[in-house]
């Protein structure tokens, strides 16, 4: 930087501003040779000569330009003088034109007034002619039925007539017209009252009368009463055809007659009277009746076809919406949505009722096939599956059917309230079907206990069905519903329905069915044992040769139930115990020891059954064997009788130990039976266990 400044301010640079000729000369004289100084002098001389000539050229050029500019300025000054003269001439001419034109307009004013007066006279004459022709015009118009023209003419003329009515020439016209109009009014009133006039004619008549300055309130009354009677007639007609037309026709008729008329009446009324106090009330009254009728039509069984119902409903709803715009009544629109929702609910109800009856039918078939099966075994799982699939399909089909209410092309299909109603209705279908199922099962279970012939397999199947529904079925259906709703009405948020009450229903139903099955099987076996114990003479019984036949039957009964249960209910793995071969009197049956009981658990005989095979079998075993104990205590045994019972008990122990999973329970009950028999024995001597074994094997 410093250096650059130094270079810039170098006094030796000849082009620089700080050039100092003395320094330069000194420097040159000091540093250069003579030759170089001579050369430098020559160079500088040529350079200064060149600069001199260049300066001269520039001076000449500038001088030329100055001269040409001076000439141009001189020329412009002479041109402006000519233009000034022209302008003066123009302003003179304009002044002249102005004076001429004012002269002309003064001349024309007189004739213009004349023309205007002529026109006015002409108009007046036209009016007069109209007035003079008015009566005949009116008559003609009335004769031709153009009442509105007549009224229009009359109202035109009336002002004039009123103004000049006191002049004799007009007076006659006025009276004549008044007479005609009076007649007209009479005709119009008659038309109002006559039942044959259409709503448009009616409205027209009223409008005309109003123009003829009839008093409002009486007109209003007449209008309303006429309208009402007309609408009533429509209503009657509609209700009479409701019985035998389908919904589409009915809605068509309704829209074309009643609703159309109502719309006309409402709009006319609003136009004419500009009061809205009465008409909505009146319309509401009519609409309520229509809705009633419509509900009846919906509920008629032949209108169950969804497609038709929806189309009819759509038409009706569209009309209603149109009506809503005309009448300012809120009720119309709210009622409209209500009708749609009601329709959806009704449809849902029809659906779940039909599902219920169909399910009942299929259940009857299953019941019959189970009852008539004889001895062959039936795959219960198959039946369960078919019932389940049947039920699920039915529900899903009806859900799909309900989705038809959400079609895009329907007037209400895209409304959120409609989607919500459909979602509610769908959940209702699911819930109601499940509740119906539960009730049905409960009822069957109750019937069962009152000795009705319902196969126990059916109870098992129903219990399992209820449990499956509770575990997966309901949630599957809910998810299915959500998917359908997502497709039909995307963006609709469905609040999760509370299904806990349905679940409780289902599980209690399942429990009732299971309990009833257990009690039924147990009681069947118990009854066999009871009858056989009570009927036998144990005192004088012969020596035992084998288990009594009833024991086999009891085992068969319990085993068949166990087999059926094993098809449907999961088997919890039975712990293999060494004691399975233990004979129950290996622990010496203490003759009568309350102490034993203190340490054994209390056995609840009729207790709720668990939903697995072992628990079901345990339940039935308890019921049967406790009965054996109690019956044994009512008898007196001889020695052989006791031994026979010993054999029976041993046999039962052997055969039943594979059922259920509570061997302690089985043994405790059988032990109890044998101990009770010992107590009731006059000569209590038991057989050798080995002999009992042999007898049992042989038998």
């Amino acid at each position, binding site marked *: 930087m410093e250096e650059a400044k130094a270079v810039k301010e170098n006094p030796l640079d000849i082009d620089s501003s700080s050039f100092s000729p003395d320094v330069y000369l000194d420097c040159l004289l000091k540093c250069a040779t003579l030759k170089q100084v001579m050369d430098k002098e020559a160079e500088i001389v040529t350079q200064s000569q060149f600069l001199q000539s260049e300066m001269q050229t520039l001076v000449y050029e500038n001088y030329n330009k100055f001269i040409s500019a001076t000439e141009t300025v001189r020329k412009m000054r002479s041109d402006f003088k000519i233009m000034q003269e022209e302008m003066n001439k123009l302003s003179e001419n304009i002044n002249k034109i102005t004076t001429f034109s004012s002269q002309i307009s003064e001349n024309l004013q007189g004739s213009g007034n004349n023309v205007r007066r002529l026109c006015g006279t002409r108009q007046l004459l036209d009016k007069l002619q109209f007035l003079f022709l008015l009566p005949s015009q009116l008559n003609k118009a009335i004769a031709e039925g153009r009442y509105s023209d007549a009224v229009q003419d009359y109202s035109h003329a009336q002002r004039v007539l009123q103004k000049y009515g006191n002049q004799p020439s007009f007076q006659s016209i006025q009276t004549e017209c008044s007479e005609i109009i009076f007649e007209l009014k009479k005709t119009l009133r008659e038309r109002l009252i006559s039942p044959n006039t259409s709503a448009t004619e009616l409205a027209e008549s009223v409008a005309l009368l109003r123009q003829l300055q009839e008093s409002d309130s009486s007109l209003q009354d007449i209008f309303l009463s006429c309208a009402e009677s007309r609408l009533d007639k429509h209503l009657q007609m509609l209700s009479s055809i409701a019985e035998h037309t389908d919904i589409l026709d009915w809605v068509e008729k309704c829209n074309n007659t009643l609703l159309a008329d109502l719309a006309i009446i409402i709009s006319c009324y609003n136009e004419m009277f500009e009061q809205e106090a009465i008409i909505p009330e009146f319309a509401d009254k009519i609409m309520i009746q229509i809705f009633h009728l419509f509900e009846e039509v919906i509920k008629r069984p032949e209108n169950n076809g969804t497609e038709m119902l929806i189309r009819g409903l759509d038409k009706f709803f569209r009309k209603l919406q149109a009506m809503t715009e005309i009448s300012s009544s809120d009720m119309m629109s709210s009622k409209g949505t209500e009708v749609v929702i009601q329709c959806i609910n009704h449809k849902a109800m029809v659906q779940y009722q039909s599902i219920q009856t169909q399910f009942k039918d299929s259940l009857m078939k299953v019941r019959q096939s189970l009852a008539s099966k004889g001895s062959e075994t039936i795959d219960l799982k198959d039946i369960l599956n078919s019932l389940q699939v049947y039920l699920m399909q039915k529900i899903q089909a009806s859900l799909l059917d309900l989705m038809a209410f959400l079609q895009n092309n329907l007037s209400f299909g895209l409304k959120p309230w409609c989607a919500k109603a459909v979602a509610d209705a769908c959940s209702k279908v699911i819930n109601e079907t499940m509740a119906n199922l539960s009730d049905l099962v409960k009822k069957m279970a109750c019937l069962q206990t*009152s000795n009705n012939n319902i196969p126990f397999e059916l109870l098992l199947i129903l219990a399992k069905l209820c449990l499956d529904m509770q575990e997966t079925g309901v949630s599957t259906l809910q998810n299915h519903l959500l998917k359908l709703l997502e497709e039909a009405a995307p963006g609709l948020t469905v609040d999760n329905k509370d299904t806990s009450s349905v679940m409780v229903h289902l599980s209690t139903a399942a429990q009732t069915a299971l309990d009833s099955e257990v009690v039924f099987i147990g009681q069947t076996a118990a009854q066999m044992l009871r009858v056989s114990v009570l009927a036998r003479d144990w005192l004088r019984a012969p020596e035992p040769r084998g288990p009594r036949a009833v024991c086999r039957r009891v085992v068969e009964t319990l085993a068949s139930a166990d087999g059926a249960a094993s098809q449907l209910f999961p088997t919890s793995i039975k712990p293999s115990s060494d004691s399975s071969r233990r004979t129950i009197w290996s622990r010496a049956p203490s003759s009568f020891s309350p102490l034993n*009981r*203190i340490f054994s658990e*209390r056995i609840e005989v*009729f207790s709720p059954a668990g939903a697995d095979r072992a628990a079901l079998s345990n339940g039935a075993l308890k019921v049967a064997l*406790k009965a054996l104990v109690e019956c044994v205590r009512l008898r*007196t045994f001889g020695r052989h009788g006791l031994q026979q019972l010993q054999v029976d008990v041993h046999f039962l122990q052997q055969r039943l130990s594979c059922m259920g999973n509570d061997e302690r329970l089985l043994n405790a009950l059988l032990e109890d039976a044998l101990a009770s028999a010992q107590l*009731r*024995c006059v000569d209590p001597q038991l057989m050798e266990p080995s002999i009992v074994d042999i007898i049992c094997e042989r038998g």
Partner: protein
Amino acid sequence: MEDGNSIIYGLEHQTRSLSPQYAESEAIRFLIGTQSLKPNSNQVHVVELEEDTGALHTKVFKHDIGEIWHLRCSPHDAANLVTTHNTYDPNTLQCTMGVSIFKLPTLQVIPKDLDELSSLQGRNAEDLELLVTIKPEKAEEEIRCAEWHPTDAGRLGVVYESSVRVHDVSSGAAVCSMKSDGRTRLKLTAGKWNPHQGHTQFAVLQDMHIKCFDTRTDCSKPSWSIDNAHRQLVRDLDFNPNRQFHVASAGDDAALNIWDYRNGKEPIFNRTDHSHWVWTVRYNSYHEQLLLTGSSDGRGLLYAAASICRDPDDDSEKTGKILEDGVLQSYEQHEDSVYCSEWSTVEPWTFASLSYDARLVISRVPRPFKYKLLL
């Protein structure tokens, strides 16, 4: 005992029969009969509860005539009792049943002095005075029970397995016999006099049905009946002491039903709280709302059935004095089936239940319920 603790009394042999002393008006006494097939081992125990101290005093009498299936004290004479008994004859290898009327030599149970106490502690069984024994017509015919006529001290109703006969007490002869239609071969289970209707009706239990015969006719048609009173066998019934058409029944379906027998289609009260057959049901004779049941699930239940014991002009509901229907208390001191339970006829709040393992449990109605009924 006042705190709801029960008093337990144990016997040596199995027991199936229990009766309060109906004619006694001061002492709380119960009689128990044992059921043992060992010869000469059966006894009648008289148990008295000393109300003030809560102590139990007992006296034992021999009953050598056989095992006792049923025992009933006379409502006319506190000393008289009737037993239904069964004897095994090893010679003929046959059992014979019979009904015997005995007289207690003394009603005194609580010892007066120490001497008597020591003699009692030896538990020397005393003899009963046998008045009369009624034998069935056929030796092997079974007898279910014998019931004193409620008013006529000279009459005894005896339920056989297939008929009911009314016997004269002094001679033992049958004065009247009722048999259900010959068509049904269902055996009878038990029976009881109807305390209303002029004491002429005798109700019997036949399988699932209840039938009531008029003893004045020999007609085989019952004067009223409740068919299918229970879904299984009916085990016991008891008449409401106040309402002449109400009868409670218990059965093998574990249910307690109360009927208005004028309309025997549906019970007016139905509860299933036991988990096995119900063998006994008793109305409290002072408070008809209270019922007692015993079942082979080893429980005694104290029930309230107040809703059906309300008169139209009764305002107890408004004052909140009514008991809620259902089980008031469950008594679980028994280890075996409870075949008998009886209210004391002297003290309205005391009752006894007896199980097969010879355990007598004397309990009281819990105080809250008592106060609710009284106040």
